[in-house]
């Protein structure tokens, strides 16, 4: 299973992920993006997930296999 993760060391609230891929990301009160659920993506959403990855001006989004790196979901500072 592929999974989307946001690196909040890099995310600075450009907010492009939830515009490009509203099926996969949502926003918070500050305008920062968050993956919906645990970020896991089915094959039908893989192309959309890739679009969000390249649309991020900070290159803060990655598609990982299985669980993803620890500590990636700390949230924006």
């Amino acid at each position: 299973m592929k999974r989307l993760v946001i690196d909040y060391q890099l995310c600075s609230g450009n907010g492009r992920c939830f515009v490009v891929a509203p099926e996969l990301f949502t926003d918070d009160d500050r305008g920062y993006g968050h993956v919906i659920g645990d970020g896991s993506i089915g094959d039908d959403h893989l192309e959309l997930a890739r679009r969000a990855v390249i649309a991020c001006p900070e290159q803060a989004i990655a598609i990982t296999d299985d669980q993803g790196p620890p500590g990636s979901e700390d949230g924006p500072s």
Partner: protein
Amino acid sequence: METFLLTDLSIEKDRTPGWHVVKDAGEVFQMGDGTWVLTSTDAVRFACRHPEIFSSAEAFRTAGVPVPLVPVAIDPPDHTKYRRVLDPLLSPRVVNAMEDRLRAQVRDLVAAFASTGRCDVVTDIAKLYPTQVFVTLFGLPLADRDQLVRWVEICNEHSTHGTADPNPTVVEAAMAMFRYVQHFIDEKRQNPGDDVLSTVLALKGDEAWSNEEVLGLIWLVLVAGLDTVTGAIGFTMLYLARNRDLRRKLVADPGLIPPFIEEVLRIEPPAPTTSRVTTQEVELCGVRIPAGAPVMLCLAAANRDPEKFEHPDDIDTAQKERGHLTFGGGIHRCLGAHLARRELRLVVEEFHKQIPEYEIAPGFEPEVVWPSATLHLRSLPLVFPVPGGAS
């Protein structure tokens, strides 16, 4: 070292050749005046991601403004405190809640000339609308719009011409604007409303902002946040005026308006560069930049990366969004980005509802004001048929 300066470039009519000159000089190079210029996506991103090496505060130290320009002229850790307050006040959710009001405002601006058969996009919309949105957001009277437009214009014209001492007209305008803003700060401390200014003033204890900090924030928005949107509105309408097929496509399928706007922002950034000063020696793309060096991040050149874009110099609404750098990046990315994008979309939607067909006034050749810190068209006269009219 290159001998040219950015101001030597001839970009009044077309920006493309100029940004190619900059790009061709290298990913990282030094200009004739000693300023280092970063032109590739990688170099610009690196600088945005490392505010501890590429300091924004140092770059604004010489701006000559008597208040701290919050938050762009602040480095971490203090920077975080301001952004925590400001991000939620300008988030997409806040912009969504304002949309109906903002839409009605641009509808009225367009209606004012829709039956006359002609308009100047720059003076009739692009200069007025961003200031109108600013007063709406900060809870100031709409009636003060034109006065603010004039003050800001005078202050920005001066900053464009650089280092010379400001003339008395500029000092007078700046002082009048400070007094005006101070008046509303005092008033909103007494009678808070439901606006950005009141929210910042309501912060208590450790969170509270000083009077200078509040003035600095408003000053920054006034001198950096308005004429950039003016520029973007002009460029957006310029591309549509020049391309009838494109605008018919957008009218038929409004879903194409947001990707079109991203493309205009990518190839015509109203703020083509942003400044930093190095705090230490750093090697970037194989080039060594010394400590204390002035650095210019050329967002305009980085946005035209031929390795990322199939047609780097053309608007392509089918092109997948690839993270342009028009709003900068990292901790200092533009706070007003969500608002600016919304303003642009509303202008395109509401203009075309009332005036779907138009062209640039015959014989007129659009030019940007140059040299200038921000790029905007001097004028964009359009002519169009009037419903029921003879033309």
